């Protein structure tokens, strides 16, 4: 459906993937280079017990860079699927982890899992065009 205000660039899947790529890359670099910040934030305590900060950082950085390459090579379907899958695994995982934390701790807010849910929605928006068949010649 065409945008009623004629906007295309900021509503395209490519731009959305670019924004997600930036966010994941920043998370990855921060986890790798500023792990003390994450370790001193209670919200990430359980997540950092399961995997150390550098492991999470490596995963986020790999996911962010895969998304960045997908933005560059946007026509390569397999690359886009790989980027969405790896991004989705991290996003869903962290969303559910924060949801568990929200249910188990009275000193938390829904902000964390809702934020990750928004990331999930953006990933779904990027994935939706991939379910359409290629245009007929």
């Amino acid at each position: 459906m065409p945008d009623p205000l004629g906007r295309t660039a900021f509503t395209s899947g490519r731009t959305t993937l670019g924004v997600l790529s930036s966010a994941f890359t920043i998370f990855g670099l921060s986890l790798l280079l500023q792990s003390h910040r994450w370790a001193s934030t209670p919200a990430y305590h359980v997540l950092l017990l399961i995997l150390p900060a550098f492991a999470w950082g490596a995963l986020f950085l790999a996911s962010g860079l895969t998304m960045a390459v997908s933005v560059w090579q946007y026509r390569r379907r397999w690359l886009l699927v790989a980027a969405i899958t790896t991004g989705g695994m991290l996003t869903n995982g962290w969303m559910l982890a924060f949801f568990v934390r929200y249910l188990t701790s009275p000193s938390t807010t829904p902000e964390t899992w809702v934020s990750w849910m928004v990331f999930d929605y953006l990933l779904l928006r990027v994935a939706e065009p991939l379910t359409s068949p290629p245009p007929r010649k």
Partner: protein
Amino acid sequence: MMILAGVGGTDSVTFVTSAVLAFAAITTSITPIVLARRRSTKEATQEAKAKLDEAQKEASNRAELTLGSWTALNGALQMEITRLQSVIDRQQAVIERCQARVEVLEALVRPGKDA
């Protein structure tokens, strides 16, 4: 809101969190399959729709052809009927001329001795 509060202790929370992380990883790993299946479903639907459109178009073309053929045949038959009617009219005129000639000749015939 504290649904899982009864689980108690950091170890239990860590265990549940690990479980949900594993669950998310496993369920999300089937994304390529889900995308491929949704794509093939849409492709099949689109193909069926294209076939239906094509069939409707062909049926419409056939109907037009039948109507065209019928109109042409009707025109040809009308022309043939007109031509045959003129032939009949001409032959009728010949017959009438011949009858008139016969009447003239009969009038010229003199009655014989026996008459």
